[in-house]
């Protein structure tokens, strides 16, 4: 394995239940606030009202909110992209002159979320194709590239809950290989009835606000949102006078090859993903200032992930931010990478809201309250359905 050169993160956009942008989300999390509610965009027939972390309409730019020709997932991606490009100092015309790749993760954005259409079809009707055409228009990477008239590779990663993390790692490799000069990388997902029903059917959804790594945890709360990072080669960023907020130093991924929905009991794939990410970053576990853990609050995920963190990073503080955002599925890895960068910048991490009581099965406890951190390198990791595990090593940037 070669040690790859880092990619500079020159801009970040983020929209989620915790905030309309990254700064707002960090402020909100530092204050420890959260307010999951039962879903408002769709009705359900479940006897229990499982809360979700929805993005308020007020967080979405008005022109995008009105773009009902696109899935909400895609509108979230566009909103985050705008923020990221503005943060990076790229204007639309200059961007069109560059080769710009788009690599985004999603779950709902690639799925046939066509319940009304299908109900009519099942009933022998001849449903209109509007829902199908919206789906075809809304592939996240293609739509962002098309809407911004970009020219470069496009890739929508559908690795379930590690998609956003994988997308960032892949986009960094595109830059190294010269496949593009700028990469927009991240993830986006929206709440929908199909996914809501699915997670409840698996009995891994909590009817109360989620409690990552807590002994009494009962499951996750779903969330929605997007985050997009602008990645550039460090020399290119420096040449145009751009500020480097952080760097993608390393990336690793591996498959458990064990079960569709349960992690390997010993975290086989996660350990290998951590090992690859550290090796490609050229650092040791002891160099890591903190970890933004996947921490979904499902019993299986937190037990396996917590044990691996305890074994590999016994002295490193970690946090789960899903108590503030819910599990945003294909967006989660990107949103958490954005949070990781912001924490490196401020030198502090928020507390893991919902955590109050250590789980003796795990032997590791997350930061329960905001914590000052020291160091220049942090990790964001993701576990996913299908046994996928993905890890990013992120380094402090110019400031």
């Amino acid at each position: 394995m070669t040690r790859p050169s880092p990619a500079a993160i020159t801009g970040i956009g983020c929209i989620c239940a915790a905030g309309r942008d990254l700064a707002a989300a960090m402020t909100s999390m530092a204050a420890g606030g959260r307010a999951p509610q039962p879903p408002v965009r769709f009705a359900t027939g479940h006897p229990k009202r499982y809360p979700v972390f929805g993005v308020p309409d007020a967080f979405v730019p008005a022109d995008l909110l009105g773009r009902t020709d696109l899935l909400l997932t895609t509108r979230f991606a566009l909103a985050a992209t705008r923020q990221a490009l503005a943060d990076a100092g790229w204007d639309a015309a200059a961007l069109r002159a560059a080769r710009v790749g788009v690599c985004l993760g999603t779950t709902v954005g690639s799925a046939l979320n066509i319940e009304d259409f299908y109900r009519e079809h099942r009933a022998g009707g001849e449903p209109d194709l509007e829902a199908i055409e919206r789906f075809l228009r809304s592939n996240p990477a293609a739509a962002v590239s098309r809407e911004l008239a970009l020219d470069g590779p496009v890739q929508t990663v559908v690795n379930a809950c590690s998609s956003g993390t994988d997308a960032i790692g892949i986009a960094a490799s595109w830059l190294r290989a010269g496949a593009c000069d700028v990469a927009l990388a991240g993830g986006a997902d929206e709440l929908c009835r199909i996914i809501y029903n699915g997670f409840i059917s698996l009995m891994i959804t909590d009817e109360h606000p989620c409690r990552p790594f807590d002994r009494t945890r009962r499951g996750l709360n779903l969330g929605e949102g997007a985050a997009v990072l602008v990645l550039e080669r460090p020399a290119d960023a420096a040449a145009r006078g751009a500020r480097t907020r952080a760097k993608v130093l390393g990336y690793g991924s591996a498959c458990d090859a064990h079960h569709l929905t349960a992690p390997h009991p010993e975290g086989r794939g996660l350990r290998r993903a951590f090992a690859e990410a550290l090796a490609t970053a050229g650092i040791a576990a002891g160099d890591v200032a903190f970890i933004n853990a996947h921490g979904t609050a499902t019993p299986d995920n937190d037990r396996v992930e917590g044990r691996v963190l305890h074994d590999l990073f016994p002295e490193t503080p970690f946090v789960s931010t899903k108590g503030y955002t819910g599990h945003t599925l294909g967006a989660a890895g990107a949103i958490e990478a954005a949070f990781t960068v912001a924490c490196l910048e401020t030198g502090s991490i928020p507390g893991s809201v919902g955590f109050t009581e250590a789980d003796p099965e795990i032997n590791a406890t997350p930061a329960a309250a905001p914590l000052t951190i020291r160091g220049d390198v942090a990790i964001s990791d993701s576990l996913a359905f299908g046994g996928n595990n993905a890890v990013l090593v992120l380094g402090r940037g110019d400031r």
Partner: protein
Amino acid sequence: MSARAAVRGIGVAGGFGTGVAALRGALAGAPSGSAGQNAATGDAAGCRPADTASLADFVDRKALRRMDTISRLSILGASLALRDAGVERVDERMGVVLATGYGPSGTTLGFLDSFIESGDACSSPTLFSSSVHNAPAANLSTLLGVTGPNLSISQFEVSASSALLTATLWLAEGRVDRVLVGGVDEYGPVLGYCWRRLFGEPDAAGCHPLETRRQSARPGEGSAFLLLERPAGGTASEVVIETVRMGRVEGASAAAIPADRLLILGADGHRRCAAAYERLVPRGSAVTTLGHLWGSFPTATAFDAAAAVLLLQDGRTPEPPPGPADPERWHLPAAGEPLPAAGIGLLRVSGSGEYALTLMHRT
């Protein structure tokens, strides 16, 4: 960074049949093993079904009991590619990159059935977990024991090209020593309904890919995998993927498409995409199309790539596609002509306005 990759094995299962011999036969113009009606769905839209019966040669039947069509297709394609390459041992230095346009669409709709019929509280957890887009790749890795990186991509018509891009980069960066990279899509009644609404009834005359003013596409399904490794170099003769380029059709210069290769166009009878091929390809270029052999579906480029490997190994052009083609616009080599020394280019355009060009040659 050189992101070249050598093809060590091919695994295909489509409407023309299963395996390399069937693919060779299709390229030589042999009658297809199946045509017309989709036995699995009863749909008569013209989709040639892919048969997964031979999967039992590779995997214990018990492990396949609850497995859906798209996972079966994926595992079959990957298993055939491993066998073709003579690989018996799979380990953590092997990765999987799977491209799919629509993912497990049949299972997704089955999951909808579960709560439409019995209420939200009775949603099927088994169908839900198998409906996630990366379930086929996960099942593949689990059953074959592939513990390296595992990636699923859904980029409609350029899914397979995008997958090849990432697979070659994984090899170049040393993340893996081998990659199973493939494309898979399934056909079903709802897709058939959409197909008829969007494109009308299938053209009785069949697919005429280069009659670009006519809608003549027929749906297809199947699975095509390549086993890639880093090139051996030296004097070894091997089929190599040189590069994958992607961009937008609008704004692409004519120089983006090489004129010194046989171009295998992704033109598959869709009128809507035909104009993009006309715009991109230099006039008089040597072209062919193969989509009429396996039908139209998003990841058919994976089949084009598998076919290109055989053509490069044999050094000869395939049977030209059926139907008329403007001789002023396209140069269609006759079957059995020598391939250009520069090799082959696979060109695919998407309904979203992207193009992907994959360049391959034999060393």
